């Protein structure tokens, strides 16, 4: 037991995943990624559309199987487990997606939606089940009488709270938030982020927080990984990455964030560059980057 307690909650070792596209070309979505997520820790993954953030999340929760590399959960190799063997591990990891409208069945009462994972994993039933769902509603700041309502009766922020309640139903250790606050208005976004921080303190959750919004990430993350074309180009503590970005792409991302203070306006040169394609002809692929540790815990790709 001691050994598993010492292990990080999640560890990826050299994980890669490709997808076929038209003809024989392949999308190199995730390339040789290694990282760890500690207990009670938030690791944010940032990068632009198509950089492989969501594929990375799908590899961790094993919606995708890695082509290469190893995915460890609590020290157990889950890289190639079949559906049945994977099942007990699924309750350890839950996901909250970007669009709470698309994540809830419009014809299912929200109480039943939150109860569903509990039924599937067969832990409780009857009044006991209802009581647990009610507690989950209260945990995320909703009233228990709302359980009877349908998704359309809720605002976007309330719906995201319902999705969080459903994700927490099985007492997971890891919650993956894939752009979970991106579609929300700024005031609601702040409230949902405060809720996530409260829940982390209360329940000791780990978060994999996927976002394109660096200002949001700076608030919520303990550690940050910057992805570019399927690879991690920089990873470190929030302070290391934001205050001392060493990779040119990290610096470019940070520079591009609009600053909500008119007194800090700067003249920026007109940039025109676009990100190259992650699609490669058969037999070819990206040059794997080499990560150098520039200070303890702060790794940067050689340029």
């Amino acid at each position: 037991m001691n050994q598993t307690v010492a292990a990080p909650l999640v560890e990826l070792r050299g994980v890669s995943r490709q997808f076929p596209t038209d003809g024989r070309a392949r999308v190199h979505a995730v390339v040789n990624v290694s990282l760890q997520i500690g207990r009670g820790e938030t690791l944010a993954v940032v990068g632009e559309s198509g950089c492989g953030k969501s594929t990375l999340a799908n590899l961790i929760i094993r919606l995708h199987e890695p082509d290469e590399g190893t995915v460890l959960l609590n020290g157990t190799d889950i890289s190639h487990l079949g559906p049945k063997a994977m099942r007990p591990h699924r309750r350890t990891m839950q996901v909250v997606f970007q669009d709470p409208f698309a994540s809830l069945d419009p014809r299912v009462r929200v109480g039943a939606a939150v109860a569903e994972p509990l039924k599937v994993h067969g832990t409780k039933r009857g009044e006991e089940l209802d009581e647990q769902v009610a507690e989950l509603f209260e945990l995320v700041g909703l009233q228990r009488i709302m359980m009877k309502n349908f998704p359309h009766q809720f605002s976007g922020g309330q719906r995201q709270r319902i999705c969080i309640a459903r994700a927490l139903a099985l007492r997971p250790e890891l919650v993956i938030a894939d752009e979970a606050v991106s579609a929300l208005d700024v005031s609601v976004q702040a409230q949902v982020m405060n809720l996530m921080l409260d829940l982390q303190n209360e329940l000791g959750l780990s978060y994999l927080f996927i976002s394109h919004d660096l200002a949001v990430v700076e608030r919520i993350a303990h550690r940050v990984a910057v992805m570019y074309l399927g690879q991690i180009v920089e990873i470190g503590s929030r302070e290391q990455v934001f205050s001392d970005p060493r990779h040119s792409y990290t610096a470019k991302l940070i520079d591009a964030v609009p600053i909500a203070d008119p007194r800090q306006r700067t003249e920026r040169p007109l940039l025109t560059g676009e990100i190259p394609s992650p699609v490669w002809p058969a037999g070819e692929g990206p040059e794997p980057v080499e990560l150098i540790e520039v200070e303890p815990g702060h790794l940067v790709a050689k340029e």
Partner: protein
Amino acid sequence: MALLSVTDLTVTFDEFTAIDSVGFEIQPGETLGVVGESGSGKSVTALSIMRLVELGSRAKVTRGRIDFEMPDGSVIDLLTQPERSMQDIRGKHVSMIFQEPLTSLNPVFPVGEQIAEALRVHEGLDKKAAHARAREMFDLVRIPEADKRFGQYPHEMSGGMRQRVMIAIALSCGPRLLIADEPTTALDVTIQAQTLGLIKQLQVETGTAVMLITHDMGVVAEVADRVVVMNRARVVEQGTVDEIFHNPQDPYTQALLSAVPRLGSMAGRVGPEPFHLAGSLR
């Protein structure tokens, strides 16, 4: 003299009041930021100026005026213009770009052709002259490899390039006012920075006034001269960008600003920290 002056504008959808007694001005060449959350009435305000709000919907403009200064110096109330005149004004004197450029472009025509169309319709240019001018617009909005891109279809372009095409169409006839409704919301942050920089640069080059609608306070802080804050169908506060960000008077503006994540605000802090929300958001 204001370029655009909106007074007491009220629009209803049956029983529901979408905007209520909205008033503000836009000066020639300035950038007015209109901020507020979903449903606050930002887009209905923009569509009213374009006189598009009543088209095919139950919306009714029940009160108000929208005075616009034409290039010859005459001032007209856009709300009283017949549809025929509005067709001349839209795209020529007041033009608009939207959040999602893919749905704004016609998928079956090359993008260059779509810029030329606006020039043929509004400027009466023949095919050849319209194409030549459209090609110049490509350079104006800094589309790289312009000759190759000119004949491409929208699906062959990235989101950022499509939005540049939209901007080229919108500016092709030299409008006095460009209404941009969440123009960078669907774009990645680096592409957003490029697009905002481009809009700013073009404003200097062409003297066009911009009404920038956004929910992103960072974007407003970066580009607006003055700001209108909307909440629940009403303008709750307006002022210079500095006044709004550094001395907000309305409780809603204060609450909104307390929820904005500000890059750099966490420097030197150890762990994550919650937002300290003001007023009604607590």
